[in-house]
């Protein structure tokens, strides 16, 4: 009985204590996967937002309160977190999360509760019929990511490409992107093999791909285990080139892939090779600032693409808040409407990944300037103009 009473007291304290932000503060909610299968990506997103918050944590004198929640790689939890952020913490804006299904789930809530949402993973929700959408997606579309690398394959004379990817939403997205590229003149996709992150072997899948005799291989995995098919294919004697998407930009992928991963080319946001970019590149200045802040806050280098999305999402928010503060006060529905309108009206926002332009007709807002091709040489990613 005592324990129950204690529990209730604590609960009440949080229900009532949650809205204790200062009246002029802007409250932002951030959701990512700190546990579960998407955690290797999710933790990178969190590092990105940490760097972003350190870069600028107030707008025109208004302090920003950042609330971070973990969704455990589960879209149900992401939905619940989104509702909590809006209904309990009264956030002005949400940013999230690390997997496509969970991001879709949050966007659905944003559209319903009319709170601006900056998605940092791919989304696929219908544009609402009435009014304007309440969210945007920062990343390049998966189809664009694959198109850029497919164009590179075409340039290098690749006619057929085999596909091995994860048995998850990301694997689906890359495969669909490859098929879309094929429709538009890209290399023919000869296989659709899948494996899970915790598999002990991909010999069978690799054998199947090799039996279709492709010129090259497109890797649809992500992080460490994306190295597995490459290791296996080389062991089985495959001589063709490897290509991939930004999800291969991962320190452990490089480590585990070793010699087999040498020479793999991936499409990537410019943030990964900021130091190698010419000074005239749109992301040189902001990218350098990003890398510096990231190193200071997280005590490591930003050698993945995901943290950059968080940072760019923050930049978009900062620019919008600056405009919105002119006409409304934080914590009000008018402020949220103003934020969303500002996101649409701000043009050519330069981030570490891309130049952003958003309209109510689509969730995405980047173009081909947002991707470059990089090659893994001696354990480092090198810009391939």
């Amino acid at each position, binding site marked *: 009985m005592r324990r129950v009473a204690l*529990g209730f007291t*604590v*609960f009440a304290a*949080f*229900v009532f204590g*949650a809205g204790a932000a200062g009246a002029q503060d802007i409250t932002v909610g951030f959701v*990512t996967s*700190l*546990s579960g299968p998407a*955690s290797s990506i999710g933790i990178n997103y969190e590092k990105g937002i940490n760097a972003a918050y350190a870069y600028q944590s107030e707008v025109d004198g208004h302090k920003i309160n950042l609330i*971070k*929640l*973990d969704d*455990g*790689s*589960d*879209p*149900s939890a992401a*939905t*619940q977190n989104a*509702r*909590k952020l809006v*209904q*309990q913490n009264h956030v002005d804006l949400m940013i999230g999360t690390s997997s*496509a*299904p969970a991001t*879709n*789930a949050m966007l*659905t809530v944003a559209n*319903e509760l009319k709170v601006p949402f900056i998605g940092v993973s791919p989304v*696929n*929700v*219908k544009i609402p019929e009435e009014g304007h959408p309440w969210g945007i997606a920062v990343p390049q579309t998966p189809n664009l990511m694959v198109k850029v690398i497919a164009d590179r394959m075409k340039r290098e004379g690749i006619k057929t490409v085999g596909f091995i990817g994860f*048995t*998850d*939403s*990301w*694997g*689906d*997205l890359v495969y669909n992107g490859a098929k879309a590229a094929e429709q538009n003149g890209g290399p023919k996709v000869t296989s659709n093999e899948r494996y899970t992150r915790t598999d002990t072997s991909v010999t069978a899948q690799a054998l199947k791909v090799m039996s279709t005799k492709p010129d090259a291989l497109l890797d649809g995995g992500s992080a460490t285990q994306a190295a597995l098919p490459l290791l296996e294919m080389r062991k089985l004697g495959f001589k063709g080139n490897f290509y991939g998407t930004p999800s291969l930009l991962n320190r452990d992928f490089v480590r585990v892939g070793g010699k087999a991963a040498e020479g793999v080319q991936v499409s990537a946001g410019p943030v990964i090779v900021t130091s190698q970019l010419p000074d005239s590149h749109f992301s040189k200045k902001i990218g350098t600032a990003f890398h510096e802040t990231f190193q200071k806050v997280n005590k490591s280098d930003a050698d993945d693409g995901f943290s950059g999305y968080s940072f760019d999402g923050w930049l978009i928010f900062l620019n919008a808040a600056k405009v919105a503060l002119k006409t409304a006060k934080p914590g009000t529905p008018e402020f949220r409407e103003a934020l969303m309108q500002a996101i649409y009206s701000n043009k050519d926002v330069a981030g570490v990944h891309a130049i952003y332009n958003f309209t109510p007709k689509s969730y995405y807002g980047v173009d081909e300037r947002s991707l470059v091709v990089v090659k893994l040489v001696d354990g480092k990613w090198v810009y391939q103009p």
Partner: protein
Amino acid sequence: MSARTGRLIVLIAVLALAAAPFYMAPFTITLMNYIGVYSFVALGLVLLTGVAGIVSFGQASFMGIAAYATAWASALMGYSPWLGLVLAIVVTCAVAAVVGIATLRLQGHFLSLSTIAWGLALYFTFGNIAGLGAYNGIPSIPPVSIGTMPLVGSGQIFYLIWGALLLSLLAAHNLLGSRSGRAMRALRGGNALVESLGINALHIRLVTFVVAALLAALSGWLYAHMSRFVSPTPFDVTWSIFFLMMAMVGGSGYLLGAIVGAALITLMKNWIQDLLPLIAPSSSGQLEIVVFSALFIVFLQRARDGIVPYVAQFLPEPRREPPKPAAALPRRPQPDQGGVLMQVEAASRNFGGLIAVNDVSFDVRAGEILALIGPNGAGKTTMFNIITGALRASKGRIVFAGKDITDAPANTIARAGIARTFQHVKLRPKMSLIDNVLLGAYSRTRAGFLAGALRLDRAEEAHARSEAMRQLERVGLGSRPFDLAGNLPLGNQRLLEIARALAADPVLLVLDEPAAGLRRQEKLKLAELLRTLRAEGLTILLVEHDMDFVMGLVDRIVVMEFGCKLCEGTPEAVRADTRVQEAYLGGVV
């Protein structure tokens, strides 16, 4: 606490719930919606695991099938969500029926493991169907509309969820108190008893399984139209495990336990999410599940049966009225006295190399009391098991009332009119006396699951309850019919078994050591009862060791030794037989 006070409390609770969106904070209403949706699955688990003893790690998959069915119908095909509901229920129950038929014959561990197996198989199947969005799922599911009003806001869908939940709770409550509910409750503890009462255990398990799947389907439908987005992740084995945890924390044998458990687990996760960043800011995400699991383990170590039974200890006992007398259930005609009722012809049974019953033949005449006696290990109980269908004879024939029952299963034989008691008393200790006796009347009544849930069986129940009271009074246990059977001393437990057997209105009563453990006065009363029954035309076959009891009571005796029939005849003839004397006493006296 009387029934009226109980109903008043329930009414107040329902009113408080109905007013909730007006006085609770919006996020609390959101949490309540999740709790409501999860409670459906937990309720199914209470029925399936808590009551019927079938541990299922696959309920989230059923939720998923329903969610995907309605998502396909409403988001991809453009139909109304209500049509999606129909589709969801039909598809989920069909799949459950197929899976159930395939796996419900398994026992214990193997059954639970099979639920993990198909649970995982279904999860990976969802993720692989491109037409259902594969791992990215189906977004933009339209909300449910009542008339022209779409239920979009938390406060709106709240009523749909909790209204449906309360109705389901009511139906489940009715079901558990009905004939089918008693059969479900009787499933735990082994099949031997259940089959001997004429209950087809597999059928009951299958329907319970489909009912649990139906509840999970309702949950899935509500979930899909509440989140308006489905993907495979919320329906994987981890969620099945959470639902099982909810049922266990609340109290897996109690209907309210489903809601209490769902509420506690959902709230606990939420509190942990709020508290942890204050204690361990940098690693709170990773620690959440650790803290949650640790709390759960500690909880189960302290309160194994869950919260509801723990709290119920402190509440006053509900007062229950004994059933009013009502018209009797129709009775079976008894066969003519003196004719042959049952013939055992050259029955044999061996277990591997051990021959337990060896070529035994005897007749049972209608209206007589026949005793089967013999030293320990003579094969008497095995003979009984062959007659009642608990075991199959290796050789020989058994003919009962003109029908060959040699290969018939136990529940068919029970329905043909043979009722039995067991050497090691088989009761359901957690059910009341009257419920145990009502189990005996199962084959004389007909109300099914649906009738039970909708309370359409009140008339038949009244007849059956009155009959059960009659039998309880007959054996002398009528004063406290709502006591738990497990609290009775052994002698009274044997009497209860007899009452249960009588409630089945048998033609032949088969009693295995009915007098064992009774004191002298009780034995006299029992003998009196058996004589009365014989006078009413009932035929009785019994095994006994107490010679005084047997000699003064029975009409004829069959003696067995080492599996063979030694001799047969009246008590005096048997007593004088030298072979019998040798077998019992090692020599002629």
